[in-house]
């Protein structure tokens, strides 16, 4: 595993910002962090960056301890904070120059290429930039560095749809280059699109790990029948979840490929049928179903 945590915890007195968090991220994987505000996503990232000292457990990046060997860890990481704050008196080009100089091997030409892709005005002072422009500048500074690990905390917040699209494309490119990405976001559709695996956090605890390729195979079938529902054939019967919906119809949830079901479905006296992917929302709602849990 390229990133590992073992019973990682951060407590502030009685408040458990993160508790007993254990997971691993494989090299080249895009790993999503999901959870409402205060669930512990940012605390987890800040522990990985060495900004916080863990109360318990430990975190490793490339077998390096994130707390004791923070400098060596940060040589391998490019990090975009959730709230990007840059040096207000500087112009955008000076910011790029600064970060190119401060990081060994930094390449200002590459930084400017990324800035151009994000349509940044390099002559403008940071103090005069909108929140979205500052976010784009932060993205250029983060994505342009050729580090093996990218940590992006809500990278698309404050961005217009076109730039969001570009950012998702850049994350895809990073994956294609074999880089590992930790992607924290509130936008489920983006996480669903870009991540290979997702963990869901609640009240500082990791409550669910979801393999996205598996989730993409899962479907929900809504049926309305004119006659009686016959039981599925025996190999499928144990795998399907069938329950009656409030409107008198049936909802069937498939755990895997849809194709073995189609033969059985065609024998049912259906008046209406609707087949849809289960999607991340359904998984997320199992753990955070309150209306205030997601924006």
């Amino acid at each position, binding site marked *: 595993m390229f990133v590992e945590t073992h019973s990682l915890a951060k407590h502030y007195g009685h408040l458990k910002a993160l508790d007993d968090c254990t997971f691993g991220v494989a090299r080249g994987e895009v790993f999503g962090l999901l959870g409402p505000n205060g669930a512990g996503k940012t605390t987890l990232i800040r522990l990985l960056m060495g900004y916080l000292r863990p109360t318990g457990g430990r975190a490793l990046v490339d077998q390096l301890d994130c707390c004791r060997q923070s400098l060596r860890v940060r*040589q391998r990481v490019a990090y975009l904070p959730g709230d990007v*704050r*840059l040096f207000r008196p*500087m112009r955008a080009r000076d910011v790029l120059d*600064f970060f190119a100089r*401060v990081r060994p091997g930094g390449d200002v030409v590459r930084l400017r290429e990324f800035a151009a892709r994000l349509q940044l005005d390099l002559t403008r002072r940071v103090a005069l930039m909108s929140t979205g422009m500052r976010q784009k500048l932060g993205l250029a500074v983060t994505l342009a560095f050729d580090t093996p690990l990218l940590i992006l905390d809500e990278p698309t917040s404050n961005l217009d749809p076109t730039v969001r699209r570009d950012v998702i494309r850049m994350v895809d490119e990073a994956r294609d280059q074999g880089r590992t990405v930790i992607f924290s976001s509130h936008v489920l559709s983006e996480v669903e699109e870009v991540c290979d695996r997702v963990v869901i956090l609640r009240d500082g605890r990791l409550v669910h790990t979801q393999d996205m390729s598996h989730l993409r195979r899962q479907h929900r079938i809504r049926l309305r029948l004119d006659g009686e529902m016959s039981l599925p054939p025996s190999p499928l019967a144990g795998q399907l979840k069938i329950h009656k919906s409030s409107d008198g119809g049936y909802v069937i949830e498939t755990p895997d490929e849809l194709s073995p079901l189609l033969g059985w479905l065609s024998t049912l006296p259906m008046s209406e049928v609707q087949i849809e992917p289960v999607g991340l929302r359904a998984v997320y709602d199992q753990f955070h179903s309150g209306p205030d849990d997601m924006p």
Partner: protein
Amino acid sequence: MNYALWKKSVHETRWLLAASGLGMFLFCWARVWLVSLVTMSKFANVVAEFWKDVERFSPVPLDHLLTYPGRIAVTFEELIVILLISVWAIGRGSDTISGELGRGTMEMLLAQPVSRSQILLTQAAVTVAGIAALVFVVWLGIFTGIHLFSVEEAPPAPTFTIPLTRIEIPWPVGDQEPIRVPLATKAKSFQFTAGCINLFALGFFLAGMTTLLSSWDRYRWRTIGIAVGVYIVQIVLKVFGLAHESLQWMSYCTFYVLYEPQAAVYAQIQHPRTWWYPILTNDQGRWQGLSPLGDSLLLVMLGCLAYASALVIFRRRDLPAPL
């Protein structure tokens, strides 16, 4: 130290340094000009009137105060000089950690492979270089004033030499017109070295103390508030300690008692060969206390201790997320 961080810090503080430097130069230059305008006899008359009341507060004897170097050395205790050096030291010291945290820029800085020590030490280097630059500007203002202005004084009385005896007898010729002589013949700019060192030491200590406060805080305004509060209390303790014998113990509770630039200049002039000794000894070679330069060294050592403590705290602390 990191060159990119150094450049960034200089870029961020260049206007404050330039403005402080210009103000410092003009004030010191003008202060020497004012010294040159008031003749020594008039100054002596003014001082004589209230000397008994203020003698307790003066770090130097009246004889020294009634010399041009003594009068120019008062520049180091002028409010504007102390204010400008303090504003730089406290402003920069508070910016080191809590300033970056408050602005939220520490997050992006530490996302790079830069150690916390590098950040603190680079900021400290810029701060200390700024203090040195401001102190040099003080000296430059004094130097320029000394070499530009002249002072009025009574001409030496004409004398008559008795033939074959080489004995000179003053020749009474009545009132003579005063003449102007260059101030450079009355005071030398190098005589203020000890005063400059003492001013630097004060700035260094203040910067270190404020950096220490900054290292555990997250709000710059709070760091500045605490630093200014401590500073004012220290000055008050010194004034009270000097004001009455029964309150003298207060002098031992303040670092400000180590800032005595007039005494440092006096020591340099009185003991040109030994003024740089850090301790005072009696004829038997026994320790008598710290010399004025020793006071400066103690301030610098306390400043170093504060910086070292700040480094330990900053390296170990949790960094809060930007608000």
